Structure formats: structure tokens, C-alpha cells
């Protein structure tokens, strides 16, 4: 899933909602469309924006490797949030985050834009998602291009789909809390990626595996949920796992996972099946962040240690969080991405 930047975007909300006379989080979905358990995706239309919903994202992460074996990771995300219901373009705010993680450095940039001007947006057919000069465009089920840059770095990549779209949760309806908050959620975890990273030290040609998450919703998380840990793991067997743990203020957690077969067949697991426990923390940006985890999904025989490639992969943006590539060792070997918020 990508409960990911859910609350992040909602940080904007209390303010905007209060300014508009809404009562706050409890009724904050007022006027917006709600996720539908009976939803059937239609492509390429659903690659585009769903403006009747409050929040939405196009979230791409990739684990990469240079010719000399050095591992890298990149992130490219575009968030949309609506300031008011009704889907008017000028009520949309857009936010882009991009990053390159190397074993010893982490480069981050952020862009913001208001809707209705053309500075940022998403079109479904032909597919294009952009903010300023950053872009993800082409045919997602076929070949597409990805670009982002910061003051002294950039990535310029080509993507090729090698597997199907995977619906998360119950046929794309992903539950986020025991109270039933949910989102519409699908992934494209079978994307081959190659291209050039431009780093302060020079250009590096890389290849690897990318994972695109698409998610939209209108409801906030439950009020007591303070943060989350989200894993997208690709194993050497060709199998994949999406798992998340939503942390509540009282120390309890709500978990959910999808086991994805090499042919893309998903098997969803509800609360409690998937576990994730911190093993070690690192001092990052003045706080303790877990950078080694034990993750288990007993029903699939998974019991592995997930470790950050670079513990300092801190996203120092308007609303900061941790996001970076990880390695998997244990019952399964592999690579993936980890996102953590609320630390």
C-alpha cells in the first residue's frame, strides 16, 4: 500500500479545513468522493488524476546498481491534494519529491505548485505526470521516461513494464485502520529501469527494478495513528511483498500486506499477519530512526532482516520523513524500499 504520505498531505488539511469552516478531521471528507470496495479499474484512465478525491499520489521508487556493483536508490513522487471539493483545477495543490540515495549520500529536492496553471498536473492519455521540469511520461504498461533534478544532481531514466498492474487490498480497496478508513490502491511493481544518475562526482549508468504506487482517498487516517513504516520488497525468487505497519499513539499497530507472485497474482493479508519489529536505530536529523527491521509473514515462511542501504536517507522537505533503499537477508534475499514517518 502506500499509507505513506497520507497524513503528510493531510497536514495541509486542518488549516485549510478550518479556514473554510469545516469542523476538522472528523468530517473532513465532506463533499469529496469516498473509496468504493466495488471499484473496477479502467486503464489508462485511472493512471490519471481523480480530482473528486481529496488526496492522490504517483509514487515511484527504484533500486539500482551501477556496472561496478554499487547499489543506488531513487525516488520520484508527485502528490495531489485538493483544498476544496468539486475537482476544480485551481483548488488542487501539487507537491513533488525526488531523491537519489547512494551508500554515503542522500540528495533531496522538493517542488510545489498550484493547480490550474499547467505548472504541474497529470494527464491519463497520453500519460504524463509533471511538476516543473520533473516528469514521468509515456505508456506505463509499455515504455516511459522519468526525470528529476536538484541543484547538483539529476536522474534521467527509461522504464519498461515487465509485468501486470497489481491491485492492493481487496481488489484495489485497501483498508487502513480497524475503524475502516480506506483508499483506492494499485501498484506496478514489475518495471525494469535504466538510465543515468548525475551526481556531484559525475555520471553513473545504472539499471534496476522500479515500483510505482498509485493511491487516492479522501479520508484521513484514524486520529490516533501517528505514523507508519512501509516496505516494498522484491525477492530473488521473483516474488514481492508490500507490507505496512500503522503505529498508534498507544503503542499498538495495524498491519496489512500483499504477497505478489512472480506472475503478479496478489494475495492480501489483513491486520496481524505481517509483522515488523525494529532491531536497531540510527541517529538521523536529530532523532532516533529504526534502520534495521525484522519482518515476518509466517504464512509465506518469511522471516528476514531489512537494513537501510544508507541510514541517513532523511527527506528534509517541508514535512520531513525517512525514505530509502534497503537490503533483505534471512529466509528470503532481495532488495526494496522503506518509508518511515512519525519519528
Amino acid at each position, binding site marked *: 500500500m502506500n499509507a505513506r504520505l497520507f497524513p503528510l498531505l493531510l497536514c*495541509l488539511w*486542518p488549516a485549510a479545513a*478550518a479556514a473554510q469552516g469545516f469542523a476538522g478531521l472528523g468530517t473532513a471528507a465532506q463533499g469529496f468522493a469516498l473509496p468504493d470496495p466495488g471499484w473496477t479499474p479502467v486503464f489508462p484512465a485511472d493512471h490519471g488524476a481523480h480530482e473528486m478525491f481529496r488526496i492522490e499520489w504517483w509514487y515511484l521508487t527504484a533500486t539500482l546498481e551501477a556496472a561496478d556493483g554499487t547499489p543506488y536508490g531513487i525516488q520520484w513522487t508527485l502528490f495531489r491534494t485538493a483544498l476544496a471539493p468539486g475537482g476544480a483545477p485551481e483548488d488542487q*495543490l501539487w507537491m513533488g519529491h525526488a531523491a537519489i540515495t547512494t551508500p554515503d549520500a542522500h540528495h533531496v529536492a522538493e517542488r*510545489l505548485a498550484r493547480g490550474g*496553471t*499547467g505548472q504541474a498536473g497529470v494527464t491519463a492519455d497520453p500519460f504524463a505526470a509533471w511538476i516543473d*521540469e520533473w516528469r514521468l511520461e509515456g505508456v506505463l504498461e509499455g515504455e516511459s521516461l522519468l526525470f528529476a533534478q*536538484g541543484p547538483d544532481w539529476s536522474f534521467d531514466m527509461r522504464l519498461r513494464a515487465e509485468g501486470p498492474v497489481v491491485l492492493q487490498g481487496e481488489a484495489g480497496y485497501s483498508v487502513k485502520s480497524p475503524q475502516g478508513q480506506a483508499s483506492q490502491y494499485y501498484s506496478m511493481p514489475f518495471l525494469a529501469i535504466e538510465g543515468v544518475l548525475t551526481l556531484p562526482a559525475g555520471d553513473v549508468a545504472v539499471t534496476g527494478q522500479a515500483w510505482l504506487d498509485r493511491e487516492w482517498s479522501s479520508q484521513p487516517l484514524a486520529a490516533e495513528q501517528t505514523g507508519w513504516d512501509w516496505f516494498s520488497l522484491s525477492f530473488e525468487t521473483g516474488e514481492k511483498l508490500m507490507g505496512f505497519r500503522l503505529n498508534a499513539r498507544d503503542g499498538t499497530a495495524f498491519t496489512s500486506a500483499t504477497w505478489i507472485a512472480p506472475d503478479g497474482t496478489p494475495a492480501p493479508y489483513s491486520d496481524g499477519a505481517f509483522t515488523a519489529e525494529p532491531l536497531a536505530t540510527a541517529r538521523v536529523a536529530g532523532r532516533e530512526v529504526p534502520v534495521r527491521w525484522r519482518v515476518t509473514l509466517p504464512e509465506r515462511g518469511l522471516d528476514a532482516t531489512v537494513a537501510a542501504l544508507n541510514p541517513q536517507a532523511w527527506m528534509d522537505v*517541508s514535512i520531513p520523513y525517512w525514505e530509502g533503499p534497503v537490503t533483505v537477508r534471512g529466509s528470503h534475499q532481495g532488495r526494496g524500499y522503506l518509508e518511515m514517518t512519525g519519528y
Partner: protein
Amino acid sequence: MTGLAGTASRALLSHWRRHPLQLFTLIAGLALATALWAGVQAINAEARASYAAASQSLDGARLVRLLPPPGRTISEAEFVALRRAGWLVSPVIEGRWGGLRIIGFDPLTAPAEVAPVALARGAEFGAFLSEEGAFAAHPETFGTLEGTGASLIGREDVPPGTALTDLRMAARLLGREGYSHLLLAPVQPLRRPPLEDVAPHLRRQEPGMHADPGALTESFHLNLTAFGLLSFAVGLFIVHGTVGLAFEQRHATVRTLRALGMPLGGLIGLMAAELAFLAAVAGLIGLVLGYLVAAALLPDVAGTLRGLYGAEVAGTLRFRPGWAASALAIAMAGTAIAAAGALHRLVTMPLLAGGTRRGGARWAARRAIRQAGAGLALLAAALAAALWGRGLVMGFATLGALMVGAALLLPLLLDRILSAGHRLARHPLARWAWADARTELPGLSLAFMALLLAMAASLGVSTMVSSFRETFRAFLDQRLAFEFYVQADTPEEAEQLLAALPEGVRAVPVMGVDLVLAGQPAEILALRDDPVYRANWRFLAARPDPWDRLAAGEGVFVSEQLARRAGLWPGTGLEIVPGLIRPVLAVYADYGNPLGQAILTEELFRTTFPGVEPLRFALHVPPDAEGILPANLSAAGLDPARLVDQHAVKTLSMQVFERTFAVTAALSMLTLGVAGFALLMSLLTLADMRLPQLAPVWALGVRRATLGWTELARALGLAALTGLVALPLGLMLAWVLLAVVNVEAFGWRLPMKLFPLDWLRLFVLALLVAALAAAWPARHLARTPPGRLLKVFADER
């Protein structure tokens, strides 16, 4: 030793107990000096803090800007094209609304150094982007914004009169489409095409090219600082005199203490500590007084700066610890300077030397000659600086050298005049009075030097004020030659407006664009050849037939500021836009405008800047149409409030200038007051010591009342002589202010005008101050009991 030190300090301190007046003089003089200095500094600090906030965090004055072609705005499409090419630019809409300066930002793209709200501060960010909108403004400005229904966010660093808001809110309020300019983020991404390829029409403007209120107002603050310094100097004269006297009177005590075994070092240490303590007390009092002075003057200063330069300064004073520390430090340093001579004499004094009063007349005469020599050297330096110096600092150096030089010359001058008077007098009592005045001169000369400085400053400033006022009034008559001015918001409204004008009203369009001329921020105006202009305009320099040649498009007029800054006088050429060069036909005065200005004929303007639509019109209204003009506009659905009466503009402009000088006038009066205080204290101090000289005269049969009157007459006579010296000095000061400082600071030179009535007023005022200062000592003398006078002879033995 401790016992001796204790005894010594008690003995030294007992001096102040026996001479409370001296103690009062010392503390009051230092406190007054500190107060004036600190007051001026407080005003300056407050204003500078306001500019810093304005130019750094608000309009991105430190950032590169991209400007549209003159007279145009930047479209949303141009902005998006730049962003999508990888250029991090952020749009700004700027304009005036209901008397406020509105700056509309895009909080999503604004560079961090100007962003009015940050995403991380969710509530304000949301309010900014909401339908109702929000303003970030100084709480003083809230009143004007309350009717808008928007949320108001209090920001102390936003100058009063300015409101920051979202781009869309600003566009709606100002009725604008398109952006005023784009701010270029200081850090740009790695790859992007050349700017010219993406936005060929936009011009890069480097930071500092636009009018910076800091630079423009600097001269105003220099003026204030000069006054503060002058007041401080006058105060130091008092302290110097008092400390010198007190130390002299304590020579006997010092001799006794040293004879008792008190080491010189310890003694000096004790006296220095004593002075430091007194300076600290006086400094604290001065700080409080200075704060009061500043708080009283600041609203006027704020008004002046706003009116003159559009620089916004908060009308309320904040307490700044740095300011307090610097004021205390200067009080200490001033005392140290004033006391250095006295301490030095104490060190070099032979252990057994007797206390001589002022070292005798011959010593005083030698000192007067030495001082006069230094004074002449300073006057020569002032002359050299005036002739060959450049820059504002040199202007002030000229001022300083002139004033101090003249003050140093004064004692010798007075001495010579008194000596001449003595030679001419026949009556014995008169001869005695002249001679006595000469003897007393060394004790009084510091006070009269202070009076000279204060009078000259007052005279110089009042001459400058009056010259300015006269010139400016004439200039306003020339520039605001039309009866009414009217402003439309859109070209459509302008058409409507012209159609609604009554029969007989002539409308002349006033069009202008801001741009850079000869490397200077400037504006270009279009002028339609009109008899009203020809009849009213006067030039500072012109070629023959300037109006006809302007009308033929053969050249341009330039303002004095532009002419002086860029050396553009008749006979040179001005590049208006790249490739278009026209000769300068005439230079006109444009007082009070920080920007340079050039004037083209309307036809040339329209072909050069085709995008500019005339929105402002000057109206020549025959008397019979004046009454129906507002009604006609109302009938056409236009707000008659748009009509600006030239009388109103003139009144407003004059008010601004009056306020500017109210501040300097207040400061010069305060300085005069301090000088009067110095005189009073000198006379009071001398009064007691003079009994040995007066007693014999009394014994010869001169009545005490006569002696009292003589005292008063002497003070008045010396004040009058000082006044006579102050007159030429003040005029020279005015000349330096008008012809040197003003040109360097503002770029224009004012003709100097003379106002003999003002001189007379000041002269009378100075005599009044002297009379007030001398009245009490004279009365005291007239009522001295005969017993005390007799005691002089008894004491002499």
C-alpha cells in the same frame, strides 16, 4: 593602605558634597549629551531595522528579478514555460490598494528568503490559499484590512502600510492579470536551457538596481547622526569644563593626600573610578531621556520617511539592548575624553605646586592662540574638502571641520574684541567691566563655544529648511500646473472617463514606464506638448528652443538627479532603449524624487513603448466646469474620488516636507537649550570664585545692583558677539548642506535663499537664552550680603 584609600575616597567625594551644583552640572550635562545622541541613534536603529526587514524578507530586493518589457506584465504562460524548462522563478504582483502597498506572492514557489508563509506552518499556509484569503501585515496595518474578510496574520517584520498576501488575492484586489515581475531563486537546478531561449522578452534585473530605501534614506539618517554628534559635542564642552574645574579645586586635597603617603596611581585610580561611576549614572539618565526624545520624534520621522521615500518605518519605538549599550559606552568614552586633560594635569602636577586659578591670564592667552591656530587649520581643511572632496562623507567632514574650526577660533576673537573695547572705553567702571570680562573669558569660553555651535546649527538648518520650502513650493506650482489629475484602472475605464469630461476640459495623458537609464533606476514619462507646460516649466540648463525640439521628437528632457548621476547635460545623448539615442535638450528640477527621470514627446513614447496605455490624465479645467466635473464622472459610473485636486496634492506634499524639518528643528532647539544650560552652569560656577575680584570694586563704592547688572550685560554682550560670529558660520553651514551634502545625498542642488527675519529671531532667542542663564547668577550677586564681600578682605589678610 586600605584605611588610607578609604580616607582618600571620602576626602575626594566630600568635594561633591561641598559643591552640589558642580555635581549636578556634571551629571546633567553628560545626561543631556547622552540623551540627544542616544535619541538620534534610537531613531536610526528603528528605521534601519524597518528597512532591513523591508528589503531583505519582503519584496526580495536581494534576489535577481525578471522584468517584463516596460508597460507590460508577465503572463501565467510565460511563468509556466520557465518553470517547465527548469527555471525556479516565482511570480509577484505588486500594487497599491486603498493606501496600502500590496505584495502578492505565490507561497508555493516563493524562494525561502521571501516566502511569506511556509508549508511547514500548516495553519497560515492554508489560510493564505483559502477562498477568503489572508494577509500577513504589521498589526498597525490591520485596521485597513479588516473589511476584507480575510484572516490577518500579525508580522512585526512587515513594515506598516504593507500587506503580503497570496498571488490570487492580490490579482483580485488590484484588478490585474499578469505578474509584475518574477523572482529568481538563488539556487537553480542542474540543467536548464538559456533564459533567452525560454523567455526572450524578459529582462534580468540584478539586485540593487531597483530603488533601495536603505540607500535613499541614508542621507536623512546621516543628517540626524550629525545633529546627534553635535549635541553630544556641546554636552562634552560642559563636562570638560566641570571636570576641569572640580579637579583644579581639589588640587589642595590631592596635595594633602599625597603628602600623607597616598600613591599617585591609587589616587588616579580612585578619581577615574569616581568619574566612571558618575558617567554610568549620567548615562543611564541620558538613556531614559534619549528614549523619550526618540519616542516623541519617531512618529514624525516615520511620516517623513514614508512621504519622502516610500520607506515604511514603524511609528513605535522598541527597546534594543545594543542601542542602550552603545549609548552607555559613548557616555563613558565622552567622559574619558573630557576628563583626560584634567587627569593628565594631575599626573604632571609637581607635588608641592600651589593651585593656580586657570593658570593666569597670560597662560589663557597662549592657550587661546594655540586653539585659534588649530581652528584656522580646520577651516582650511573644510575649505579644501568643500572644493575638492567628493561623496557624502566628505560633505559631513566639511561640516565638522567648519564647525569645530570656527568654535576654536571664537575665544581669541572674543578676547580681541574685548581688548579693543577696553582700549576704547573711557569711564573707569566701563574700563573695569571690559577688563573683567576679558579675565573671565577663559572660564566662559567653553560655554560660548557651545552656544556658537548651537546657534550656527540652528541658523544653518533653518536656512536650509526655508530655502527648501520656498523652492519646493515654486516647484510644485510648476509641476502641478493642471487643475486636476485623474487615474483610471483599465484602458476601457480611461475611455469612459474621457467621454464623461464636460465641455471645455482638456485632458493631457500622463504615461510612464520604469526602466534602467544610463545604469540608473529611472522612469520615462511621455509629455504632450501643452501650453500649460510651456508656461510653467523652468529649466536648470537648456539648449535653445527645447519645447519645439522636444515636440519634434529631436531629443529628451532629463531630471537633475539623472543629469548629475549619469553626467547627462545638454550636449550629451541618452540611450532610451537599446539602439535609440536622443540628445539631452534640457535639465529640469525634480525635487524629492529618488528616481532619475527622462521625458519624451508623446509620439516618440508611443512608438517606443507601444504596450503602455494612458491611464492617468492631467485635466485643464476652466473655472465654470469645475463644479460639474465630479457630477459628470458620477453619472458615467465613475467614482469622483479618483479626481485629485492639485491643491490637495500640494498641501500633502508640503506637509511631508514640513514634517521632515520639524524633526531637525526640534533637535536644533534642544541643542540650543543644552548650550544655554552650559552657560548657566559656567556662570554659576564662576559666581562664587569671582568674589575676590568683585569685592574691591564694591569697596570702591560701586553698588551691588550695578555689579549685578554689569554681570548680566557682560553675558548678553558676549552672547551677542557670539551671535555675530554664528551668523556667517550658520550661512556657511547652510551652504554646505544645500550645495554639498544635498547634492551628494539626493542628487539635486537647492538654491540658497536668505531669511534675515529668521536670523533676527534666532539672535533674540540666543540673547534670551544668555539672559536667562545670567539672570540668576546676576541676581545672586546683587543680593550678596555685604558681610560676604567683606569676608574676602578678611580672608586675604
